[in-house]
Every structure is written in structure tokens, then in C-alpha cells.
């Protein structure tokens, strides 16, 4: 009884938030699931149950498989790009350089800008027009004498999704750098020192002492960038709008709701996005919370 009097007020203070999360996260996810199994395929709201029909429909939907292909390409380029650049920048900054704070602020600043605003600039930079009408980066390539690099960017029918990842890499490499930098700095200096005393070269210190320490950070970066990638929406809207050549699942869902008024199918895509993200995030959450409890 004394226990409840002790912790009771705390639970009471948090209970509004618990209720809000329960209703607006978990409750609405359930409701969305219900919509995706309904026959609500037009503006008028209907609520008949049709099971997994819509999901089965997606399996043979060519537009859906095209979206998945775009998302897959985008994700590969996005994850590899941010991890490589973030890691490299952190490595360069790790040992301390003059103006470290200055460089860090520059690399991180894209995080403060919306994808809509940066998308507008990148659409200009990645202007696909050829020849005399060329603009943006294609002009730079021409002037630098590497005109063969000029390309159609995101308008390329097959590999355009890779170009779309460029602004995303630009936006989030600084973030991954910050993660890695914290990881590098978390390696106890005594360990590095001990390895140096044993005569290890600076490279070997990194290779055998520092890098193994970075595995958890690398995993965290991989999961965070991966889940951002699955959700990508604003950036694509700003660059390609509703064009099919840049469409990813989140855009398809938007088009289905707004233009086609196909709510059941939109809800089904939303559910699939959630499933994809849950596969990444739930093990990570459980692992992190357990880890924390242990320390």
C-alpha cells in the first residue's frame, strides 16, 4: 500500500501521455489495419470486411513492384553513401583538427533544412536537360572536361532512384558522422595507448582496437538510415512530385488517397511500410533498452 502511495502519483502524471500513445499510436495502427481489410475503395466511406484481398492485389500490381525497386535502389545508395561519408568524416575529425567545431557545423547544417527546400535546389542541380539546355551539375561536368558524366539523373528510367539518393546522402552524412564521432571518442584512450606501447602502428591501433568498438554504432547508423529510407516522402515530392519515374511506396499511398480515393489500398501500403520498419526497429529497441538496464 505504501508502495502505491509512493509511485502512484508518478503513474498518474504520465497517464495522459500513456493514453494518448495507446490511442494515437497503437489504436490507430489497429484501425488502419482494419481499413486495409475493408472494401473502402472510393470516396464514400464503407466498412465491409474483405480480408487480405487488397494485399493480394498488390502482389500482382506492377506499379507497386516498380515502387519497391525504386525504394530498394534508393536505400542501397542512401545507406552506403551516408555510412561511407559519415565514417570517413568522423575518422578525419577523430584525432582533433583545428576548427573541428567549424567543420562539424558545416557537415551537419543540412539537417536543419527541410527536405522540401533542399529538394528544390537539388532538382536544379540534377537538371536532366541535355546539350545547350543543360543546367546544374551537368554544366559543371562539361566545364571540368568530364562531360561523359553528364546524365539524366533522377529522370533515368532504370537507375534514377540512385540519383534521388544523392540529396539524401547530402542531408544525412553529417548525422552519421556525428554518430561515428561519438563512437570514436567512446574508445578508452588507455586501450589505444596500450596498443601503441606494444608497438602497434597508428593504422593497426585503428584496425584492431578502435574499429571493433564501432560495431554497435555502425549497427545503429544502419538501422536509423534504413528506417528513414523506408519512410522517404518529402524529398521525393519536392524533386519528382507524382511522376512515376521517382515513385516510392509512400508516394503511391499518397496518390491513392488523394487522387484515386482508394483508402483500403492506401492503408494496406501504410501497413506494409510499418511492417518493414518494425522488422528493423523492434529488435534494436529491445536490445538498446536491455543494454541500458544492464548498466
Amino acid at each position, binding site marked *: 500500500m505504501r508502495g502505491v502511495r509512493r509511485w502512484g*502519483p508518478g503513474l498518474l*502524471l*504520465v497517464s495522459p501521455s500513456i493514453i494518448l500513445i495507446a490511442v494515437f499510436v497503437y489504436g490507430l495502427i489497429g484501425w488502419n489495419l482494419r481499413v486495409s481489410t475493408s472494401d473502402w475503395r472510393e470516396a464514400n466511406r464503407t466498412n465491409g470486411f474483405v480480408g487480405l484481398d487488397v494485399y493480394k492485389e498488390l502482389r500482382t500490381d506492377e506499379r507497386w513492384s516498380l515502387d519497391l525497386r525504386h525504394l530498394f535502389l534508393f536505400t542501397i545508395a542512401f545507406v552506403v553513401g551516408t555510412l561511407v561519408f559519415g565514417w570517413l568524416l568522423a575518422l578525419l575529425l577523430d584525432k582533433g583538427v583545428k576548427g573541428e567545431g567549424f567543420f562539424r557545423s558545416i557537415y551537419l547544417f543540412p539537417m536543419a533544412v527541410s527536405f522540401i527546400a533542399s529538394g528544390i535546389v537539388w532538382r536544379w542541380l540534377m537538371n536532366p536537360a541535355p546539350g545547350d539546355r543543360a543546367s546544374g551539375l551537368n554544366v559543371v561536368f562539361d566545364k571540368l572536361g568530364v562531360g561523359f558524366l553528364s546524365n539524366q539523373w533522377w529522370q533515368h528510367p532504370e537507375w534514377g532512384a540512385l540519383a534521388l539518393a544523392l540529396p539524401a546522402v547530402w542531408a544525412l552524412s553529417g548525422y552519421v558522422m556525428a554518430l561515428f564521432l561519438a563512437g570514436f571518442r567512446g574508445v578508452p584512450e588507455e586501450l589505444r595507448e596500450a596498443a601503441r606501447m606494444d608497438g602497434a602502428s597508428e593504422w593497426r591501433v585503428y584496425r584492431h582496437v578502435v574499429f571493433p568498438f564501432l560495431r554497435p554504432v555502425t549497427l545503429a*547508423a544502419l538501422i*536509423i538510415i534504413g528506417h528513414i529510407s523506408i519512410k522517404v516522402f518529402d524529398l521525393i515530392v519536392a524533386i519528382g*512530385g507524382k511522376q512515376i519515374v521517382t515513385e516510392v511506396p509512400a508516394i503511391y499511398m499518397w496518390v491513392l488517397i488523394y487522387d484515386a480515393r482508394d483508402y483500403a489500398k492506401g492503408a494496406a501500403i501504410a501497413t506494409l511500410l510499418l511492417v518493414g520498419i518494425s522488422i528493423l526497429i523492434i529488435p534494436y529497441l529491445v536490445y538498446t*533498452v536491455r543494454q541500458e538496464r544492464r548498466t
Partner: protein
Amino acid sequence: MSTTTAAPPAVAPIQGRSRRRRIARATPLKYAVLIGFAIIVLTPVYVLLVTSFKTIDEIDPAHAWSLPQTLTFDAWRQAWTQLSPSMQNSFKLAIPATILSCVLGSMNGFVLSKWRFPGADLIFTFFLFGMFIPYQAVMIPLSLLLDDIHFPAGIPRLIFAHVVYGIPITALIFRNYYSTIPDDLMEAARMDRAGMLRTYWSVILPLSAPAFVVAAIWQFTSIWNDFLFAVFLITDPAKWPVTVALNNTAGSLVTPFNLQMSAALLASLPTLIVYILLGRFFMRGLMAGALKG
């Protein structure tokens, strides 16, 4: 964030010399790479600035990368006329939503770290999952529900959504921060038989300023930059926040480039100013997003 640049530790003289030499050799290359990356990262800013001050005759591809021949503020003036109503909407949205988020976050963080109840960790994990979900997965029922309960349309809906879906990240930021406050302080309050609210008010809250800054910057930036909630929940163009207005005016392909660029810059100014003034705290919020203290 610790930014201390550690002095090279003292080692045996010969080894020390050779190490220093190696670092000295590597340094110019290192700086060259760092500066190179900085230039690449800043290229879009150059394009934005340069193009936004050009006249309409100068924005053709041939002059794409050159400095403006005649400096003009026309595009900026035009961008201001087009975007100022939606900028006001964004302020009316982001400021109250940020304040509410921070108040809720502070209370939740306090209880989840210092006044714990059985199952607090489980509840916290349930909160955190809400931070990662794709909001598309709640968007259709969210707008149905808000319609069904006759929630006031327009900006209030967006404020509500951002406060609710901001609960996880703000709880995380405050919880991480409060767990660094020594328990001795709590013990002292307990000795004085202070209740929960008194302890929160007179012990915890006075120490909370840094966490409030971190959470406020994080929430303000993400609410200002949000597009997804706005595009799904706001139907009246007069109530659009600036991201939606920007996408609809500057995002259109018939809009001249100088206007596109000045509008994009204008819409980004508030968050950029916050970043320039308080970047240090911004970084801490980022790390919280990775679940790291």
C-alpha cells in the same frame, strides 16, 4: 558533446618524433579533404544565394553558376509576398506545439527516470516505438478520428498531432538528461518529505534548462520542416504551413528559378537561424534520436 581535442600523450621520445612526423605529413591532405567536403556540402547554398539575387534574364542555363551581374531583390520580395501568410501559419503552429511538447516531455522524463513506477521501462519502450513508426500507418484513421470527434480544423489539428507524436522523442531527451542528475538530490527532497510535484518543481525543474533547449530546438525544427502531417491534415490552403506552400508555389515547374531559390531560402531561414545560434544543442538532440545519451 565533448569537443576537447586531446593533446598527444607523452610517449618515448623517438616514437613520439616519428608519430608526430607521420601526423604532420598527413595533415595537409587531411585538411584538403575536409575543406573539399565542406565545399561540396555548401554548394547548394551557393546556388540558392546566387540564383535568388538574379534577375529573370540571368537565370538561363548559360549563366547558371556565375555570380549575378545585377543584384536584385525582386525574387526575394516576390517570395515574401507569396510565403508570408504561410510563414505566419508555421509560427502559429510551431511555437505552441513546441512549448506543449516540452512541458509534457519534462514531466514524462522526470517520472520515467526519477519517480519510477513498476513497468516504467516497458511503458518507455512502448513510447519509443511511436518515434520510429511511419506516420502513414496512422494517417488515414487519424484524420477520420479528428473528423468524427469534430476536432477544430486547421492549425489546431497540426498542433495536436505534433504534440502527440512528439511525446516519445521529448520523453527520451528529458529522461536521458534527468538520469544524469544525482539521486542524492532526490534523497534530500525525500528527507524533507517533499511530495512528487514539489520535488519536480523545486529540485528538478530549476536544473532543466539545457534539456528544455535541446527538446525545444528539436521539436521546433521538425515541426517547422514537417510536410507529411500538413499535407494530410490541412485541407484549407489558407492554413497551409510554409513547407506545403513552398512546395506548391516554388515547387511548380513554371516558377522561375530565382523565385524558387529565394522562396526555399526564406522558408528555411527560421530553422537555419536557430541552428547557427544554438547548433551545439541541436547536435545533442540528434544524438538522442539515436537513443544515445
